[in-house]
């Protein structure tokens, strides 16, 4: 019994049922194990890994530089930028905004940079439900290709203080310009 000491020799061979079960479980585990790397190689939805360290001031300059160059409008006091696909796109997280609003083109591939000016935030792109962590001191670079056009929202999903629930930003994907 589980509450008494086992008999003198307990290193007994497994019965047939046990062997079958363990073998099946092991095979299942091996399949899952192989599946993950394979899916990484063939799939199109992988979390990015490209990272740089960056100071808040430097990152802020990059954001402002992009805005100065590509600003196309304004919404609720937030600049709207339409960057070109061969240049980096910067989004800045801070308590409690996602800044600025970026406008991407469908089918083009972008390098989307994320960093925080203060504490940790969670980049949650809705409604497609894509989630990435945004840390201060690190520039996290996601390579993304929008496949649907329309209006998207960025919600913060890592607790970041009393304004956490108000940290909502926006993103647009436009049909490509002819």
């Amino acid at each position: 019994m589980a509450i008494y000491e086992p008999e003198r020799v307990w290193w007994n061979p497994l019965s047939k049922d046990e062997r079958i079960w363990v073998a099946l479980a092991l095979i299942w585990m091996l399949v899952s194990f192989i599946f993950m790397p394979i899916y990484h190689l063939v799939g199109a939805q992988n979390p990015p890994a490209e990272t740089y360290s960056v100071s808040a001031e430097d990152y802020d300059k990059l954001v402002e530089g992009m805005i100065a160059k590509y600003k196309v409008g304004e919404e609720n006091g937030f600049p709207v930028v339409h960057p070109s696909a061969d240049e980096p796109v910067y989004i800045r997280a801070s308590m409690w905004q996602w800044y600025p609003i970026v406008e991407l083109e469908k089918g083009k591939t972008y390098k989307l940079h994320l960093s925080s000016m203060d504490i940790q935030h969670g980049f949650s792109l809705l409604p497609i439900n894509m989630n990435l962590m945004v840390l201060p001191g690190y520039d996290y670079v996601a390579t993304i290709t929008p496949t649907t056009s329309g209006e998207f929202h960025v919600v913060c999903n890592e607790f970041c203080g009393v304004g956490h629930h108000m940290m909502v930003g926006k993103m647009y994907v436009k049909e490509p310009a002819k």
Partner: protein
Amino acid sequence: MASIFRTDPSTGLKIDRASENLIRWNLIAALATLAVGGLLALGVVLTRWPSVHLLPLDYYYRFLTLHGIDALLAWIIFFEIALVHFTSTVILGTRSYVPWLGWLAFALMLIGGGLINVIVLMGGADVMFTSYVPLKADPLYYIGVILFAVGALLGFIIFFINIVLSKRDGGYKRSLPLGSFGMLAASIIGVLTLAHGAAIFIPTLLWALDFIPWVDPAAYRLVFWGLGHPSQQINVSAMVAVWYMTVAFVLGGKPVNEKLSRTAFVLYILFINVASEHHLLVDPVLSTWHKIVNTSYMMHLAVLASMIHAFAIPASIEVALRKQGYTRGLFEWLKKAPWGNPAFSGMAISILLFGFLGGITGVIFGTEQFNIIRHNTIAITGHFHGTVVAGTTVAFMGFTYLLIPYVFRREIIWKGFASIQPYLYGTGVALLSIGMMSAGSFGVPRRHYDITFSGAPFSFTFDPSIDMFLSMMGVGGLLAVTGGVLYILLGFGSIIWGKKIEH
């Protein structure tokens, strides 16, 4: 020598007074902290249910921080320390060799836990139990966590001291009984885990005191989850040990194959400790292949261990019941199992829900590609209410109905209510957890005060079906809280008013 022991009339277990008192007080502390954690859960769940939205903003975050601490840290670990004493003395029939250390550990945990509660309620630490830097709490908060963790560390160390000396005194000859072996695994993981805790909370305390300028947020997350994830494996090992012991106590069943079950515990020790990066799958810094090796190779070997227990325990139940004569057909034993005994039903519900709700979602959400569509959504909260609540908490609740008669020598009161308590709580938590998982699949964030985003510059409207899922979470939460209150009443009621069991 004989005077320090008494013999339990129903099981023949020898219990010495010192460990009896330690088990009693750790159990009382566990019940008390679960009561607080459950009340906080009521506030939190009624706030997350949009049509109720009960608490004001600051109290929601404060209660959520404390709910995490009191339920996950305090209730579970106090109960586990009670199990440490139980399995390293009572089960072996030897005495507690270092009761003073047990009391020191208990006092540290109590003081640390109390300090955390006071600081958080005073508004000094609205940081969630993860306290991700550079979100800063009052230094006393970190001191509270460190005191609690040191207490827990000493608590687990007592296990090693007791079993070594117990062997000297003939408590066991060659091998520990399986229940103690499971707690040995839990204690080994506990010590490794709490070392990570020290590695991260001490620098963070120094930073909060302005002795050091900066704690790197990415490094914090890595080391924190070196604490946070394996500590869940303490809970799994302890839960599985409780499953085996429950089968033994209730049915007299024995493990079908000791080799298999013990190997599975060793797999837990070896692999889950390293597999903690599924918390970091969408973090910057770590490379893709690092994450993949960690979360696939390491994790699946630990899952294999759970698969083994998932076979071994039902098998030993079947064997035990067939021995009692329930041999007709394939399933007579299942029909005739003691479903009205809350210790048995608690264990059965725990096995079922842990496997199907907690385990499966854990394996899914822990893969690279799925994690990116679930990370930090309330689906994650749904997952771990399937593991640590529907699994560990329900198993511990069931075992309480066995422990109280053994260590308090009191009968359980209100037998009828006791026999439905695991079902009530289990159903509630299952609904809660499924509601959360479903809402999370639409992107509903966890730890979020207002998903209508009032006051935000832009507003996002979720898919309307989330209303239904969040209501399911709410109703499940209410059921679970009812089951939880019942458990607390039964527990304290039996300790205070239960009929005395005489020899």
